[in-house]
């Protein structure tokens, strides 16, 4: 849906890193480089970003106000 605020396992803040992760991914950087730059060291936090699907973009197409 939308990126969770914290890692489910360890509680590290990840919601602030999602946009940077997206940007760097589009630039073509490797996941290894990105995680180093974002200060993510554990695999629990890495899977939060890697496996995330931003479904909220699809839901925005349906106007709730109508």
């Amino acid at each position: 849906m939308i990126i969770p605020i914290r890692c489910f396992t360890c509680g590290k803040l990840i919601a602030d890193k999602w946009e940077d992760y997206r940007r760097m991914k589009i630039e073509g950087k490797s996941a290894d480089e990105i995680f180093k730059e974002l200060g993510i060291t554990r695999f629990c936090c890495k899977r939060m970003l890697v496996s995330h699907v931003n479904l909220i973009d699809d839901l925005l197409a349906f106007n709730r106000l109508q």
Partner: protein
Amino acid sequence: MKVEVVETIKNDNIDMIRFVLEDVSLELANGFRRIILSEVPCMAVDEVIFLENDSPLFDEIIAHRLGLIPLKSDIENYNLPNQCDCGGVGCTLCRAELTCTIQADLDGTLVKSKDLISTDPNIVPVNDKIIIAKLQKGSSLEFEAYTRLGIGRDHAKWQPVSTVGFGNFPDVTIDSKKCQSCSNQCIAGDRCPESLIKFGGNKAKLIKEYWKECTVCKSCAKYCPEEAIEVNEVSNKFIFVVEGTGALPIKTILIKALEIFQEKVEEFQGNLANKELFGLEFIILSFSFYNL
């Protein structure tokens, strides 16, 4: 008790410390760890009033997301609600307010933590970039969020650290006399996942300060054909890792944890002295009840 700081990292993304704790029993070290996790207070959003919410997310989801945002806390000037004069109803001494009013002009407007306006400049989100919700064109989000102090035992959002852990201090010894039979290659050294053993001149050697990286996996001892390597753990010596969320400086967390530990010990001693309340028989009974 001896403390030696090994490493500190502090930047926008990570705030952590690694230190060696010496001459402390395992039980005491674990008690310290548990107090950092569940007893040190910090600030988090506890109550949210929604005035308008046109986003695709439900009120409850946004409220939960707000709760998990780490806030820079001020534990000196705020009271825990159950210790406050107001009795936990909520006053300026135990509560701060964050408000957000946002009207989206464009499709896909992100509501971020920078849109939260605090009544107290000391109680603000640790970061301006935390995504709270996403809005379509013309929709709006308006809410009031109340923050209060709490402890990690009640909810994980009040934990001042994301991770805190400790491991045994490694003690690896290599008997280089036995290395003579391996002429050109050290099998055990190649097996080390952290590459801590270097081989040269028919001798295997540990790199300097190997204990910083060693995970005590013992694969070197397992795969050495000559059984020249011995891996032990030093008793009463631990390597601690504390990684904060940014809510409190790590130094404050550690000092506060020790203060709370001291208070608990004193409370226990006081209870022991009060024989009317806790007679010796009662203690023996309760110890046997918990299988201690």
